[in-house]
């Protein structure tokens, strides 16, 4: 580590001003008046932008980007002003000097399972149909000799990357906009900002060279990019806006809460006959975002009868968005907990139950799987973990006050890939340069892209330079949906392959300028696959539950994943372990609570939003089964950024049950809940 990487708010541009956003302090209503005179009178304050004087923007593709365009306050924390000053402190002092009055209206920030506002949307996140139904679930469930009917609840969660959302913006004399933005996809930010400011995409450059984590919250452009650009336009100076940590919870998305009812019907040998997964969640009044938590039930297990339903209520809350494995992470917590309950009801080993219901084709679509190694993951994990000697009886292992237990759960995540462009350049000195607007959000994207190119070019990896993180490079999709490496790598592979061909066509020295070829994977990635393509995995976990304090600590956690060909074992393991750690947080420590009175999140700093500390994360191991799947992409890879979190919370919850004999169906398994349950 050398410290030379420059992040979005570390550009130190000459003449740069600093901006401080002003969040609404009411949960719903409108801005009645903003008195800016006192703020503007402060030394160093250059401007106060409000809905009255901010540049008018075009309608954005995402309504959260329509900031300072009208007086409406859709939720507490919505930005109602921006103060721009010579210094960060000056901007903040200006923000405090504003006198804002609101007209407030009654608000409702609390999701309940029977909320009056719940409706069935057309689609859930990812474009999945909100409702899918096969057969006659109600009849099949009623007729099933063994039934599980359980409801699971997960509160809101936050991504909270280490680097806050931040943008430095500047406009050139000829009206070009440059943004240094902490983002997971600079091409997407460029296009969205071009739309907002009525520019052509080629008039906007977005640089996201180094990004300190995102976990989905930087997958779409965030308001700070628009605000910084507005402020730079208004003042004619570069403007830096780094989101204060305490403001983030309201404006950079969160995992929406879910209330999930799962009904499983099975025959007495454990064969599933019906699967019903029905979820309720919230969105904001700004936009409809529906956490697609019932979608994995369309993939996981065979059953003749199935119903998967999403319902959503638009509340006066911040807008939810992507957080690592949206849909799969909460959905598989419920489904895999219910599977464990079914195994208990059947008196069947939970690994065996899953093996008995491992389908040959995707249940919802009927398509064959391109590869599906859930069974191999379960078997391999069971052997490594020592599962096969497990005493299935709950609540029989004690060490003093500690109750010990083990649990298992499956994981799945879809294979996505999007169109990407890349160029490959051969220089006369024998070196190569790859250009693709990929983003490295801490995953090691540069490394793996260099590997892919070096492999095709048959050259040492040190001989390949990779340029990423700049929208002036060939267009590429964002680092999201565990699709970055597949999408970017595909275009890099194609460009490198074309370069090899080109170089083979001519002999003799290269021209002084070298040779450059470009590639575009629009056609390949648009092809409808005849296969259902998903990664799978299995988590095994051992927990110690302190029956006296309610503290649940992980003794060990072991994941085995089947995600195509793993391109780099070091960075791959890091992704799996990182996902498992985040799953541990979801299960045991992380919680954002919506304050019903104020309509905001109570936990707004990293002291109160408890991501796992190092002391929580001991004994984590990740393994994989290398798959040879010809139906994916030239690298044979599936995404690995998200599957590590999927199912992790269920494995821990199931281990909790095995330890205590008590089913807790609400996360996190924190001492207050655990003590009440064990009483």
């Amino acid at each position, binding site marked *: 580590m050398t410290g030379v990487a420059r992040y979005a708010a570390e550009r130190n541009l000459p003449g740069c001003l600093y901006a401080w956003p002003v969040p609404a302090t009411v949960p719903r209503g409108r801005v009645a008046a903003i008195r800016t005179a006192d703020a503007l009178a402060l030394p160093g304050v250059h401007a106060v932008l409000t809905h009255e004087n901010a540049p008018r923007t075009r309608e954005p593709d995402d309504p959260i980007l329509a900031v300072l365009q009208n007086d409406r306050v859709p939720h507490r924390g919505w930005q109602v002003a921006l103060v721009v000053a010579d210094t960060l*402190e000056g901007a903040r002092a200006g923000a405090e000097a504003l006198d804002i009055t609101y007209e407030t209206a009654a608000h409702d920030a609390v999701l309940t399972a029977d909320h009056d506002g719940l409706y069935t949307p057309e689609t859930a996140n990812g474009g999945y149909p909100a409702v899918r139904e096969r057969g006659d679930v109600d009849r099949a469930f009623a007729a099933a000799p063994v039934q599980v009917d359980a409801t699971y609840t997960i509160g809101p969660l936050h991504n909270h990357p280490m680097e806050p959302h931040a943008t430095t913006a500047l406009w050139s004399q000829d009206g070009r906009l440059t943004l240094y933005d902490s983002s997971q996809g600079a091409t997407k930010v460029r296009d969205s900002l071009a739309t907002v400011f009525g520019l052509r995409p080629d008039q906007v450059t977005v640089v996201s060279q180094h990004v300190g984590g995102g976990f989905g919250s930087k997958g779409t452009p965030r308001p700070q990019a628009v605000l910084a650009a507005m402020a730079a336009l208004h003042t004619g100076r570069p403007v830096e806006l780094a989101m204060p940590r305490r403001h983030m919870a309201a404006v950079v998305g969160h995992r929406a809460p879910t209330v999930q009812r799962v009904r499983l019907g099975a025959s007495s040998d454990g064969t599933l006959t019906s699967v019903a997964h029905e979820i309720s969640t919230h969105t904001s009044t700004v936009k409809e975002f529906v956490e697609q938590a019932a979608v994995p039930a369309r993939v996981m297990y065979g059953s003749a009868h199935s119903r998967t339903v999403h319902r959503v209520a638009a509340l006066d809350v911040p807008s939810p968005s992507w957080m690592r494995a949206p849909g799969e992470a909460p959905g598989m917590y419920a489904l895999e907990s219910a599977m464990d309950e079914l195994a208990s009801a059947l008196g069947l080993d939970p690994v065996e139950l899953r093996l008995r219901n491992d389908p040959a084709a995707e249940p919802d679509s009927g398509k064959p799987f391109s590869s599906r190694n859930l069974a191999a993951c379960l078997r391999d994990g069971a052997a490594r973990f020592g599962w096969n000697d497990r005493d299935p009886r709950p609540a029989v292992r004690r060490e003093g006050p500690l109750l010990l237990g083990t649990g298992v759960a499956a994981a799945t995540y879809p294979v996505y890939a999007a169109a990407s462009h890349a160029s490959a350049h051969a220089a006369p000195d024998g070196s190569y340069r790859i250009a693709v607007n990929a983003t490295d959000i801490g995953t090691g994207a540069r490394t793996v892209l260099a590997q892919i190119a070096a492999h095709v070019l048959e050259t040492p990896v040190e001989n390949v330079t990779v340029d990423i993180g700049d929208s002036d490079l060939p267009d590429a999709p964002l680092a999201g949906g565990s699709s970055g490496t597949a999408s970017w790598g595909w275009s890099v592979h194609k460009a490198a392959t074309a370069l090899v061909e080109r170089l083979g066509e001519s002999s003799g020295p290269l021209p002084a300028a070298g040779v450059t070829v470009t590639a575009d994977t629009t056609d390949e990635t648009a092809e409808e696959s005849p296969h259902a393509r998903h990664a799978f995995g299995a988590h095994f976990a051992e927990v110690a539950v302190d029956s006296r304090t309610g503290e649940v600590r992980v003794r060990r956690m072991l994941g085995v994943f089947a995600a195509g060909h793993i391109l780099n074992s070091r960075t791959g393991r890091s992704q799996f372990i990182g996902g498992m750690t985040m799953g541990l947080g979801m299960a045991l420590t992380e919680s954002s609570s919506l304050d019903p009175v*104020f309509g905001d999140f109570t936990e707004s700093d990293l002291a109160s939003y408890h991501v796992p500390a190092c002391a929580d994360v001991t004994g984590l191991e990740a393994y994989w089964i290398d798959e040879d799947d010809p139906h994916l992409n030239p690298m044979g890879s599936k995404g690995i950024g998200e599957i590590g979190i999927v199912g992790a919370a269920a494995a821990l919850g199931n281990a909790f049950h095995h330890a205590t004999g008590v089913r807790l169906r609400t996360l996190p398994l924190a001492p207050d809940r655990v003590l009440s349950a064990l009483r």
Partner: protein
Amino acid sequence: MKPFAYLRAASVAEAVRESAARPGARFLGGGTNLVDLMKLGVESPGLLIDVSRLPLDRVTDTADGGLRIGATVRNSDLAAHPAVRTRYPALSQALLAGASGQLRNTATTGGNLLQRTRCPYFQDTSKPCNKREPGSGCPAREGAHRDLAVIGHSTECVATHPSDMAVALAALDAVVLLYGPDGERTVAVTEFHRLPGDDPSADTVIRPDEMITEVVLPPLPEGTVSLYRKARDRASFAFALASVAAVLRVREGRIEHAALAFGGLAHRPWRARTAEEALRGAPAGDAVYLSAVDAELAAARPLRDNAFKVTLARHLAVDALAALTTRA
């Protein structure tokens, strides 16, 4: 910008004199809480008087076998001090249970005692809080209070004192030395922090311009054992949901001395005098411990979402006493 002046005091006397001359001045120790509060806008001192380099960084034996701890001794150093580890293990354990390694390296003994509550409403200047803004109201009572007080709170305030160290000091009968414009005085740690009553704005009995210079631990008679137990939401770097410091001396099966203090339950380290009264002279044993602790916690008035803390405190205290009994 809220400008503030910075002064590095050369002596305790100078620090106190400068503070008296500048209303609204604050003493700066490690800054691990004060600077955060300045960033939050909760504190806005006009002058920071840096006392962290005053020659108050020593831990020395007292003539009677106790320990004298300078106000600027860092939490890490105090936790690691051999005399603390061997003679006052509860204090070492409490320190190590607090915060993170980096924070403990910076935080001072005096500053730790003076840290403010982490109640979310206290820390958010856009919301009412009687402690921060007297008379503005207490949203925590109806709002988010899972982590807040269950005993000794008032209609005005349900905040908890966040320190682990102070809980151990309370059980160990430590004394705080204060130096102010009127000279030196001593206050027992148990009397140093206040209950909120109808004036939650004051956390402690410290007077304006007074400064903590030392904390003195009295000697513990031969055969006295102590420990600190803490329950929290994650394995490290989390405030106590509840904690207990226990000090015990048992002879021939009878309790000669018992001191018990709870953390995370109240506006101050909660010294359990009722329980101690019940324990003194009683036979050591779980049943006695349970009834003594329950007698203490009978005064608890938990709020909607924090009743679990009473159970937690009961378990921690009974288990701590039982663990000490096997060592005594």
